[in-house]
């Protein structure tokens, strides 16, 4: 009876999208995999389109999974659907609740070896882990022979997590496609044969295919005013028992097993047959499902609250017996107000979600459990609070985590379990530390140790010492930190707690390095190796972050060059984007310090100001502020003032010191170093107190320039020490050796020798450091130097990317594939000079390799000496 609105008419005006999907499938099968994102308003016919694609002869195996509108999404729901039909390893890894980074390689293997059409439907309801899978797949689709189709509604709230994912969806094989509603012509084609006023129908429905179909299905010429009315009008046409059945089953999202249909609506086969015949329910392999979720929502909205609760209770009972997903059970338990079941299933669901990396959903499950936790005993509740706090902390809800842990400490105290109380305090202190509440963290951390030292020593005390070591490190109290880290390390090893042992090995190594002990590197790298070998993500991430941090603090460029690539790859593959942001910012700082300003700016991730990275932002704005100040660009004080404010708020030397040094340099460039004298002096003293010699030496230099008294530094790093002692040329050579051209020029610029000043000018000029170059020119005048360079030479300025004519020569030779030694021969200069030119060229082009430079040269059209806009 519904023949006129079957699949074929629903697919009016879908030839082009369908052709695109088929073309993508062909390309995929030919070895160039694709990910296609299909968006459109609810009811626009996304599912119908995908169904049609699946029906066509595409020669691929089909894996389909969909997301459902639960209060809290099932973690990896669509993959679980797929795994239930797929054999072999995918079924195994998904089945045991493995995290995304373990599932992904297996999934990719499958998509590379067997042409597969993978469908993820309705991802606007997806959990965090599913979104991770999609984002990671997108980057690699081109290497498969499969097609992934993702469908989503496109009216998303601005803060919907999907927006971030879609924004970042990029990759060689990613395409997007938006489905439009039907045109007036199509609506006419459908409506006029049935005697409807097509124009009015079009206006009323906006051409939404689902809405149009519902109205036509009611058969009554008077038009309903909304989709909901249309659906209800259509349901009103059913026999009363069938309509009741439809309402009963509408409380279930997704596929409804037949057993559940019977339990909810009675075993009257006739009613079910009527619902199916009407087209409102559709049969699937393992049950029935609403043809469209808009219809389900409309019907479910009509049920009275008490009846709804009773229906959810039935669903809970039936599904419990079938071993259903705990997230689904918790959903029904909450809807029926069954506190015991909520507190039984929500924590399990939370644990599973956490294991899969869906921390947002895990946090939601713990919140749900805690809302119903009134009947629990203190110990169970404390456990719930502690586990939940970890999840909400991971999604940046520090205040919530702190509040929960404070409750947990109290409950542990009430229960009289001193070890557990101390351990809860240690957890609280850790979250306070990461949330920027330093003094609270210190206070609670010390109390935890005091309490635990009264007990038999074990894992809890080892963890408390480990926490103290980190507190001391952030406070730059290296000696206190080293003692605590040592204690933690020994105790953890003694009681066989691997986690605490690796953690403290890392902290111990970092503290050693910070205090100038090279052996620290060994410990840090060992913690990395152990973490990698044993698959402990957190420890690996921490080791990488610390290695990158030490590289930027101590100008250890060998470390950043060795680790940056693998570290970012690892963090992104393991869903640790937050950590990757820190890596990028540290890397940006090393690029800045190596004179590659454009590369430094491009390395700063745009997301550096999102929640969770307030501290990475400080370094990022310091880099931006310094680049602006050095180039003479506007806005440098905006950046440096923000950095100052943020650093002051953090109160930690690791942010305060570099900010003070950057502000000193910017003030020097403007000839008003005196205005920041107080800032420099207090930061300098703090650096000396904490033995942070790299920053201390830099700040000592600016203090000296500001005419302030400078205390002796025990251990200033060589290039700064030479400069402070007035050995400018040696210092310049040391900076050059290190690979820091701006500082090399700084050393030369403060010499009284005309040749040194000229050399300083050359370097500044090649870096595009106009304000510093101008200072050198002024000094040359004051010293009565005769041949003074004419500011930045105009020929330089006209060359693309601000390259000097010499650099342009070098670039052309690079493009021809010459090695540095060949270039040196060609241009009759030393190999060292060529090295310098090459790094300057790379920096100005904002690239990191010769191959990229060659590509850029070709793009700029300079490989044969021509330019774009000049005669």
């Amino acid at each position, binding site marked *: 009876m519904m023949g006129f609105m079957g699949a074929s008419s629903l697919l009016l005006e879908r030839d082009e999208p369908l052709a695109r999907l088929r073309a993508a499938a062909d390309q995929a099968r030919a070895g160039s995999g694709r990910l296609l994102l299909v968006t459109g308003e609810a009811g626009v016919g996304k599912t119908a389109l995908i169904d049609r694609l699946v029906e066509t002869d595409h020669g691929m195996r089909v894996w389909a999974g969909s997301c459902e509108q639960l209060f809290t999404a099932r973690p990896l729901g669509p993959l679980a659907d797929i795994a239930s039909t797929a054999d072999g390893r995918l079924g195994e890894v998904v089945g045991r609740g493995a995290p995304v980074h373990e599932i992904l390689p297996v999934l990719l293997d499958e998509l590379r070896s067997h042409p597969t059409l993978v469908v993820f439907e309705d991802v606007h309801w997806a959990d965090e882990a599913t979104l991770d899978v999609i984002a990671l797949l997108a980057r690699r689709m081109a290497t498969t022979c499969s097609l992934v189709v993702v469908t989503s509604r496109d009216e998303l709230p601005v803060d919907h997590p999907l927006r971030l994912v879609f924004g970042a969806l990029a990759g060689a094989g990613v395409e997007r496609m938006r489905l439009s509603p039907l045109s007036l012509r199509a609506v006419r084609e459908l409506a006029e044969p049935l005697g409807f006023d097509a124009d009015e129908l079009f206006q009323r429905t906006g051409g939404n295919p689902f809405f149009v179909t519902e109205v036509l299905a009611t058969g009554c010429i008077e038009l309903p005013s909304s989709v909901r009315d249309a659906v209800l009008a259509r349901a009103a046409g059913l026999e009363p028992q069938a309509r009741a059945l439809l309402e009963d089953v509408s409380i279930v999202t997704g596929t409804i097993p037949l057993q559940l249909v019977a339990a909810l609506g009675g075993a009257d086969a006739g009613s079910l047959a009527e619902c199916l015949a009407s087209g409102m329910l559709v049969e699937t392999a393992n049950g029935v499902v609403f043809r469209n979720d808009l219809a389900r929502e409309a019907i479910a909205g009509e049920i009275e609250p008490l009846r709804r609760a009773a229906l959810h209770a039935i669903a809970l009972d039936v599904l419990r017996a079938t071993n259903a997903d705990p997230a689904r059970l918790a959903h029904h338990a909450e809807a029926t107000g069954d506190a015991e079941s909520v507190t039984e299933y929500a924590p399990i669901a939370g644990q599973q979600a956490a294991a899969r990396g869906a921390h947002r959903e895990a946090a939601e499950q713990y919140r749900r459990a805690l809302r119903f936790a009134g009947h629990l005993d203190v110990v169970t509740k404390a456990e719930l609070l502690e586990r939940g706090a970890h999840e909400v902390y991971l999604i940046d809800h520090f205040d919530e985590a702190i509040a929960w842990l404070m409750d947990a400490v109290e409950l542990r105290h009430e229960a009289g379990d001193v070890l557990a109380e101390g351990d809860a305090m240690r957890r609280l202190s850790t979250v306070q530390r990461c949330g920027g509440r330093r003094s609270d963290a210190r206070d609670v951390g010390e109390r935890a140790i005091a309490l635990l030292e009264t007990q038999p020593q074990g894992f809890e005390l080892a963890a408390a010492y480990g926490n103290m070591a980190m507190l001391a490190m952030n406070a730059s109290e290296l000696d206190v930190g080293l003692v605590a880290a040592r204690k933690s390390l020994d105790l953890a090893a003694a009681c066989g707690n691997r986690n605490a042992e690796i953690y403290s090995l890392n902290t111990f190594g970092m503290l050693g390095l910070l205090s100038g002990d090279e052996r620290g590197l060994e410990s840090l790298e060992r913690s990395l190796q152990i973490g990698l070998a044993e698959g402990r993500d957190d420890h690996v991430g921490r080791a990488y972050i610390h290695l990158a941090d030490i590289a930027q603090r101590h100008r250890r460029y060998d470390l950043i060059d060795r680790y940056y690539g693998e570290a970012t790859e690892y963090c992104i593959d393991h869903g640790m984007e937050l950590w990757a942001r820190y890596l990028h910012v540290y890397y940006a700082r090393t690029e800045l310090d190596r004179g590659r300003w*454009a590369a430094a*700016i*491009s390395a700063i991730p745009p997301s550096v100001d999102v929640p969770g990275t307030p501290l990475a932002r400080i370094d990022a704005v310091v880099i*931006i502020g310094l*680049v*602006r100040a050095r*180039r*003479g*660009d*506007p*806005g440098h004080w905006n950046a440096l003032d923000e950095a100052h404010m943020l650093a002051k708020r953090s109160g930690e030397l690791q942010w305060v010191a570099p900010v003070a040094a950057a502000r000193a340099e910017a003030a020097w460039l403007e000839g008003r170093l005196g205005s920041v004298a107080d800032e420099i002096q207090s930061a300098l003293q703090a650096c000396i107190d904490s033995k942070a010699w790299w920053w201390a030496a830099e700040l000592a230099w600016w203090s000296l320039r500001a005419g302030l008294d400078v205390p002796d530094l025990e251990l200033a790093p060589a290039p700064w020490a030479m400069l402070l002692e007035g050995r400018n040329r040696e210092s310049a050579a040391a900076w050059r050796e290190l690979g820091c051209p701006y500082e090399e020029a700084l050393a030369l610029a403060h010499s009284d020798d005309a040749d040194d000043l000229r050399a300083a000018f050359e370097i500044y000029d090649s870096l595009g450091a*106009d304000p510093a170059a101008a200072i050198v020119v002024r000094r040359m005048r004051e010293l009565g130097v005769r041949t003074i360079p004419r500011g*930045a030479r*105009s*020929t330089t*300025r*006209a*060359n*693309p*990317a*601000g390259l000097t004519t010499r650099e342009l020569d070098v670039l052309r030779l690079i493009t021809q594939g010459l090695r540095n030694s060949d270039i040196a021969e060609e241009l009759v200069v030393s190999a060292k000079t060529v090295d310098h030119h090459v790094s300057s060229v790379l920096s*100005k*082009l*904002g690239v990191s390799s010769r191959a990229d430079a060659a590509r850029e040269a070709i*793009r*700029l*059209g*300079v490989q044969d000496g021509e*330019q*774009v*806009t*000049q*005669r």
Partner: protein
Amino acid sequence: MPRYLVERSFPDGLDIPIDDNGMKTVASVVATNADLGVTWVHSYVGDDNRKTFCIYDGPSPEAIRQVAQRNGLPVDAITEVRVLDPYFYVGDPNAS
């Protein structure tokens, strides 16, 4: 979005012919700018064609430099500017 005055030097003179080629050059600059959200509002060109003063809207000076580099255009200096309308100060003619 901030507005910037970008000064550029062309020692051999700027040459954008008033024909298809000129149009292509300008269109390609505009398209490259758009990648980073930079808008070229307009330019003032010195009468010897050796110096230009270009008004740009853009998210940051870094973005201005990055697109300049991609376009192969020189940058001498970037200044953040605002519009001053002298007639803003002219009073209501009907008031005494």
